[in-house]
Structures are given as C-alpha cells and as structure tokens.
C-alpha cells in the first residue's frame, strides 16, 4: 500500500517576490551584466557542485552560450557494470566489468545489481560535464516517482532511470506516455494488475494528482475522472522476458469512459481487441489539453530551480507565462528551461543564495570543488565503493537516490511550510558536518588505507592568485558560499587561519612560495595544509556553506 502524502497547496500567500526597479522580474530574458557572480549562480542551480574552472568557462562564455552548453545533448553514459563479484560470489550470467542491465533476473544477483545501480547513479553526479541533464534526471524522478523497493528488479530500475535520462530534455507528454508503459511504473503503481474485473486506481490517481494536473485550486478533476482514467489504463501488462509492456485485450475495460467538465466532458469510446491500447493516447491528449498541466509542471520547475515561495505574483509573472511557453511548444521542456534559466527573475539578486543545499549538493559539491581524487574504472570495485559511500551519505541525510519516501517525492520539494528547510535539522546538520570533518581530517575510508580525502592545497592551487591571502579568501568565499561575505569576516578568516594571527600578508605568500617551489617537501606542504585545514574547518561549518 503506497502511503499517501498530504494535501499540497501550490499557491502560498506571503513573501513578496523579487522586483527590479519596483517591477517584479519576470521571464523576460536577463539583460543586465554577465559577470562571475551570474556564472556562479547559474552553476549552483544547474549542477550539484562545480569547480573554479567551470566558473571561468561560463563567465567567459556568456549567458547564451552557457545555456547552450548546459542544455546540450550528451552521449548517454556507460551503464552500470558488474562490480560485485567476490571470492565468494559470482554473477551467474554477467562477467566482471560487463553490464548487467539486460541480464535475466536472478535473486542473488538482483540485490547486488540494485546496489550497483545506486552507486552508479550517484557516480553520474561526480562527473565533470557542464550539463544540466543529470540534475534533470533527479527532477524527473522526484516528479514521476518510483521507489526502488516497489520496483525491485534492478533491470527495470535502471531502465526507468535510463528513460528519464534519455528524455530529460524532451517532450513531457511523450515522457508521461513512456513511463506509463514502463515495467518499473507498471509494477510500482500496480498498472500490471489493473483489470476490467477490478480496476486499480493507483496509477490513474497519481497520474492526475501528482504527475500532470496536480491538486491546486485550479485543478478540478473529479473522483469519477480518476475511476474513468483507471478504466482506460486497464490491460497493460509487463513482458518480463523483454523488459517491456504488452497489451492484454481480455483484461481491458471496453466500455465508454466519460470525463468531467474539467476535461471538457470528453468521452473516450471503449475499443475492443488490440485497438483498446489506443485509448491511452486519447487519454493523454485529453489530459494535455488542460492548461493546468503546463502550470503544474512549471511550478515544479520553479520549486526545483528557483525557490519554494509561489504566490499570486509568482503565478502571474512567472508560472502563467512559462506555462504558455510549454503549451505553445507542445510540451517540449527545453524551451521552458531555456526561458526560466535565462530569465531576469532567475538572475534577480533576491534569488541568489536562497536555496538550501540538498545532500547531493554537499556530497558531490565537496568532490568537485576540492578536486578530491576518485578511483577510476581501472579498479571497478573501488570506484563503485567510493560512489556507494557518497550514495550512503546522501541517503542518511534524507535523499536516497531512486527511493523517495513515497510517491509524492522528496518532501523538501513540496511539503509546506518548510520545503527545503526539511533537509536541515539538528541530526542532518551534524551529519553534514561530520562528513566534512572526516574528509578534512582522517579521510573517508573506502577499503583499508584507501580513503577519500580533501588535500587543502589542491583547491588553492587552482585559484588565480594563491600567493595573495586576500585573494585566496575572496576566491574561496566566492566558490564555497552562496551569499556574499563581508570584509570583516574575510579579514578574520585571513588573519586567523592563513596568517596564524600574524599581521603581515607576506607570511602566507612566503609559505605558499616555499610549497609551490619545492614539490615533495613535506614540511612546506604541511605548513600550508595545516593552515588551510583550519580555514576549511571553519568555512565549511558555517551556515553560508549550506546555501546555494
């Protein structure tokens, strides 16, 4: 039995939305200056973590080219591989280093393959590509939810994920059609049991309530609509041998399905035989002719990329015009993304730094910003182990990839009034801090002596001017903090940590020069690393680091 989640009200009174010169900023293209801080803001919202070089790239590229890069179609990644053979276990059909995604189901292999998938998906966020797609996969999984335990078969779990990735920048209506027919969804929401004798409303309900129309004040579908939709969806079954669906006419309800005024009083005529399958497309045409669907997806995009406050002004200035773009583009997502991420509203000062970092932002962000060395595919078990450690960190902090707590997704994206503040409580903030300290101090153990560790000089070596302690502090606060740091704090950080209480900047400069000019000299390396470690122990444990 899938747990219900609570009533969602997408319209909230309260906080005024950003304005520029008294006018609320809207979806018109951002036309003011393009500088480093705009580049950083765009990176924060489109990737889980980034490097200093990423900032340089986008700053130089400008807004238009940056968006093109972020929204471009990349080749699909290498799928998950057998990383899990050991002395005591051998996968019956898949050799080490080969992919298991087409392999026949085997109960012992399955649990290992599921772990492999978890690690592998986490690994996708650790890749350096400047692209929005992987973050969109999370967006889609949060919206079009399946839970790994409800799907169970690793092959279907992967297939679903692959579907979300392949269609991440594609057509929303096509995507809905595809997930409706995916083995993962047919299993998760009982589509595969939905029959004319006993229609199961599970998928139909979530299709309307969560995936398409939503349940806002302007969404007026009825209980009868849910029942009717469920009847349309009868007869679809899973073809387990070929990991696809098939249509079973004898299970299909061939009667007529009448929908409410919200759906224009549409009547879908029942069809028998294999033509019954076509009713699905009529259902989708009907649903997608309702403007509320476009608004629903736009609200989801807004809360995922901008902020959680959506009030009457937001509806008028952002949601409605953005929904129009979706509709006029026949539910292609890319134009909406381009518009939203290139809009004056998105780059409004008020929107910067207001997003609380998700567990993925922290896990992947530390790896990227600090250039933490990860094992490569030369040692597959170790590589997956590293990914698994970070997957576990995110899970313990409330974000288990492929397993939201229920069909409504992760509560940070919908649960009012706190929304993303839900990521942070006294338990999770302690865990975030422990993780950071572990990386800075003794290291995150993978196997034995093999660890993930921050080497403080690595990030500083990439800065424009590591010799000047003022520049070091300025660049680091720029990369690590979602909000501006005042001069007093920067001065405090420089003198307490980089200068160890001395007053002359030259002490840092000399120490850095000694380090840079004498590679391999541990004493020089230690002198700067201890100071930087102290600095990062301070900086990364401030609230500012948790903002994006």
């Amino acid at each position: 039995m899938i747990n219900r989640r609570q009533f969602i009200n997408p319209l909230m009174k309260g906080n005024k939305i950003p304005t520029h010169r008294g006018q609320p900023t809207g979806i018109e293209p951002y036309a003011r200056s393009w500088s480093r801080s705009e580049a950083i803001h765009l990176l924060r919202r489109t990737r889980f973590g980034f490097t200093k070089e990423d900032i340089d790239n986008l700053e130089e590229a400008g807004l238009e080219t940056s968006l093109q890069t972020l929204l471009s179609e990349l080749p699909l990644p290498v799928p998950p591989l057998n990383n899990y053979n050991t002395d005591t276990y051998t996968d019956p059909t898949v050799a080490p280093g080969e992919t298991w995604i087409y392999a026949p189901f085997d109960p012992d292999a399955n649990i290992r393959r599921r772990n492999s998938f978890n690690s592998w998906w986490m690994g996708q966020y650790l890749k350096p590509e400047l692209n929005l797609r992987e973050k969109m996969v999370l967006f889609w999984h949060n919206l079009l939810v399946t839970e790994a335990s409800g799907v169970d078969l690793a092959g279907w779990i992967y297939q679903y994920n692959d579907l979300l990735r392949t269609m991440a920048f594609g057509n929303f209506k096509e995507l809905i059609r595809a997930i409706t027919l995916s083995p993962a969804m047919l299993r998760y929401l009982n589509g595969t049991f939905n029959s004319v004798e006993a229609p199961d409303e599970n998928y139909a309900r979530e299709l309307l309530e969560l995936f398409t129309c939503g349940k806002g004040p302007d969404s007026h579908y009825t209980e009868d609509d849910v029942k009717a939709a469920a009847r349309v969806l009868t007869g679809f079954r899973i073809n387990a041998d070929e990991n696809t669906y098939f249509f079973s006419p004898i299970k299909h309800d061939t009667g007529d399905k009448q929908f409410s005024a919200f759906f224009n009083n549409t009547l879908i005529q029942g069809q028998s035989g294999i033509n019954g399958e076509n009713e699905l497309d009529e259902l989708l045409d009907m649903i997608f002719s309702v403007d509320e669907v476009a608004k629903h997806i736009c609200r989801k995009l807004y809360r995922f990329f901008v902020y959680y406050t959506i009030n009457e002004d937001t509806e008028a200035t952002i949601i409605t015009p953005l929904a129009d773009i979706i509709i006029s583009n026949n539910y292609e997502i890319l134009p909406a993304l381009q518009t939203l991420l290139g809009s004056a509203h998105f780059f409004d000062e008020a929107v910067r730094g207001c997003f609380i970092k998700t567990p993925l932002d922290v896990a992947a962000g530390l790896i990227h910003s600090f250039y933490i060395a990860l094992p490569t595919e030369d040692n597959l078990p170790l590589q997956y182990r590293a990914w698994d450690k970070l997957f576990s960190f995110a899970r313990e902090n409330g974000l288990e990839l492929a397993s939201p707590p229920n069909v409504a997704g992760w509560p940070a994206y919908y649960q009012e009034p706190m929304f993303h503040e839900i990521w942070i409580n006294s338990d999770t903030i302690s865990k975030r801090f422990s993780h950071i300290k572990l990386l800075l101090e003794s290291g995150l153990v993978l196997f034995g002596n093999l660890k993930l560790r921050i080497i403080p000089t690595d990030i500083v070596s990439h800065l424009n001017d590591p010799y000047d302690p003022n520049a070091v502090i300025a660049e680091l606060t720029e990369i690590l903090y979602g909000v501006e740091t005042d001069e007093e704090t920067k001065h405090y950080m420089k003198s307490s940590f980089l200068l160890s209480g001395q007053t002359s900047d030259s002490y840092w400069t000399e120490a850095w020069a000694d380090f840079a000019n004498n590679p391999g000299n541990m004493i020089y390396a230690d002198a700067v690393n201890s100071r930087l470690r102290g600095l990062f122990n301070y900086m990364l444990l401030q609230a500012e680091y948790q903002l994006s």
Partner: protein
Amino acid sequence: MKRRKFISATGASVVLPTIINGFSMKAFGQSKWMNMLAASQVNTDRVLVIINLNGGNDGLNTVIPLDQYSELSAARSNILVSENEVLSLAGTTLTGLHPEMGGMQSLFGENKLRIIQSVGYPDPNYSHFRATDIWATGSDSDQLLQSGVMGRFLDYAYPGFPIDYPNEVMPDPLALQIGNGLPLLFQGANGNNAMTISGESIFQDWQNPTGTDLPSSWAGQELAYIRTVIDQTEVFAEQIINAYNYNVTQYSGYPAAGSNRLADQLKIVAKLIAGGLKTRIYFVNISGFDNHSEQVDVANHSTGIHATLLRQVSEAIYAFQMDCEWLTIADKVMGMTFSEFGRRIKSNASIGTDHGAAAPLFLFGTQVNGGLQGDNPLIPASVNENDNLPMQYDFRAVYTSILKEWFCVEEDGLLEIMLQNFPAYPLCNGDCSSVGISHLAIAHTISALASPNPFSTRFYLDYTVSEGSNTVVLYDNNGRLLKELRSGHQMAGSYRLSIDADAYPAGNYYVQVRCGSEQKTAWAMKVR
C-alpha cells in the same frame, strides 16, 4: 553576511550520532567511560591556561640579563631599555623584568611566578608557521606530526572523545579556545579536541543567535534558519552559558574592558572556572610580537609596541591571578605563556629584531614553584646578525613537567603523549599522592666551563656532574645541534672533554651538559 560571533568550528562541539540501522542515536552507557576515566587516573580538577604570545616574543627585552648589560648594549643599543628602569626580581641581582611588567614582578615576589630561561628545541625553525606547528605538536624540528600535544593529552585523559561525550562525568568542553586558535595544538585522533568561542560578545548575543545583521531576503531567511539549527546542535553551548551566568563578582582590578584583549579573555576564563565549567585547558592569545621594526620608541626605549604588549601581558596575568585568588579557584589554576620563538640577539637597523630561537617561558599560579629556572642566556661579547640564543630547556620537557606534575599523568601516558622521553622539572606543588606518583626530582649539581675562550681549532670543556646519566651536546650560534659529545652514566666528579672545532666556521658555540633535570651551558668563541 557578518561573521558568526559564536564559533562552533570543531569536533568538540558536535556530537557524532551513532548510526544504527540508519537511525541516528546518541547512545552511551554510564559505566563505559567512567571506567575509561578511572583507567587514565588523571587529575580531574586542575586547569591549565595557555597564553600564546603570537609572533615571537623578544625574550631578551622581557627577562633582562642584568649581569651582561654591557654585552646587551653592544648588541642592541637602539632598543635596549635603560639599566635603571629594569624591574628587579626578588632574591637576585642578575636578572630583571622589562619596566612595564610590574604585575608579574609582584607575582615573582609572592613566589607565584616561575621564569624558565631559554626554552627552545634543537635545530630551531625560524618560520612562524613551522615553529608554531612544532610548539603545537611537540615534534622534532625535522619531523611532521599531525596531532597536537594537548590533543594527545586530551585523547589520553578522555579516550574516544567526542564519541559518547558529553556525559555526566564530563559534560563540558575538554578545552576551550577564546579567539584565534592554533591549527594543531588540540588536534587529537578524532579531530580537534577544543571548542572555539570568539569572545565575550557571544554571551551578550546569546539571546539573538542569528544576529540582527541579516537582510530580510529569501537568502537571509534561510541563513537564519540554518544558524538556528546549528545552534541547537551546539551541545556545549548551554553548559558554557550557564557557567558564564553563574552569579559571581569578579576582581575589580582588571584593565577597562576593551583596553586589553588578553585581560578580557582571561576574565572570561576566570568566570567560567568559577562558574563550575569543568573544561581542563583554556587557550588565549595576544598577537603583535613580530617586531621586525619599531619595537621601541626611539626617545624612550621603555615604551613602544613591545612595551605595550608586555604591559598588557603583565597586567592581564596579574589581574587574572588576583581574580583566581578572589574567586578561591587559585589552587587549581596554573598558567603558562609561550611564543613560537624568541628574537635575534642583535637588533636591526629598523629599531626592531628578527626571528630568533630560545626565549623565556612563564608559569604562574599559587601552586607554581616560583623562581628562576636556568641561567641567564649567554650574550657573546661580539654578536653578529645571525647569532641566536641556544636552548637551555626543551619546551617538550616543560610540557612533560606540566603533564606529570600538574595533571599527574603517569610514565606510560607521558610517553604516549610526548612520543619521546623528556625530563620533568618540579614546576609546581601539585600533589599527585592520590595516584601514587612521586614528583620530587633528585637534585644534581653541574658546572661547565670552556677553555681556552676564544679558541682557534679546539677547546676543552671542564664539567662536573653528580652521579647519574648525563648528555653533553654542542650547538652552533643558530641553535643547531652539531654533535652529541657524550652520553651515558658517570660517577660524580669532574671531567674534561676535548672538542675539535677545526671544521666549523668562526663564531659562537655552546656546549650544554644535561644531567637529570638540570643543565648548564658553556660558551666558547672560535676566532681565526
């Protein structure tokens, strides 16, 4: 955003949740760490206050060797204070204190101040960062350690920290740093064993932890939320606030608030101790000692930058000591000062001094065995810019002495913490009889004399020792250890060593005879 006034930057301040089946629990059994504490047998009542003089304090301008005033004059006349302004120390005419150190002069007279001469270590390093790390970790000059002396001590005394802490036996931070800390001093096996607070303002700001400086933007809102949550995880906050707010009246003679930051910090320390905080070690610091130039006022060498700093140190220590006595906590409080190095014997042309080597170290408190430990440093008649004062005492022996005499750490613990064997001096009256340690050192008599002096290729060291194990080492003018001339057991008596310095350049050399906890240094100059 403005800096948080309340810094919870360390492992001491966040309890690691225990993860069981994905659920976080803070679980501890009462008996487990009570056994740990019993096992360590460390004195659980006493407090050490460490005062860092940050930048390298000019020892020769602090503790002034009056018996070599003319040598001092030859070396540093442009900064030397006038002889008649030097404050005298009770019981000796050979050594005095800088004119601005009246408070500490009084403490010396009351037998509450111990001055240890020429504290350093072999092959001293002249870089602030490296020297600071050496003092913090207790490493040899060419050795890298990632943990600090106090970090290791706290690991020994509170095994497993921070897991299962705080608890009923130790509900408070193990160590507390006020203001800037050192990166390594408190570094233990599981991270930093000290908590840092920024200063007194945090106690006033406690009602408003997120500050009034946050803009009313979305980002500001989220920042306020996160800070509030962070404060809730600050497990020691309540303890510290309660101790601070405990109703006591402090000594009225502190310098005016804001006029002496070190005094302000020490005043907080006294209040916390009197308020019942069980923290063992406090760390405070005063910066500005790196006087490469304008160390003194040209018109009056008794005033100027260094003089002001020494006055602040002396006033702060004096007020703090008086306050501890006023608050009746003095018997369990001991203070020490240290600096990462001393300064050059010879002053420079900018009316300042450059980085040096050994320097005096102060210990104070009612339980301290007051007096002068060691001899005046030897100032050669002719000093060049590169000459430095050799060590008489290794700073690690000072730490060892404190651990043994004050905190009653046993021999196996001392080795675990200090990583090598160092002698222990009878610094304090500390009674460790309840844990069965005898702290009385056996008295030795040593003398050492070099001749001829000056010499050209070789010289003799005539020395006397009492029976026991001794070591004789040779240093150059930079404090670099050149040779261990002998080591081992000898019967009481006089001995002569011949030292061949033919291969060494002209300059000043020092031979140190170490016997038990005592030492004597002889000086000889090689000329062409």
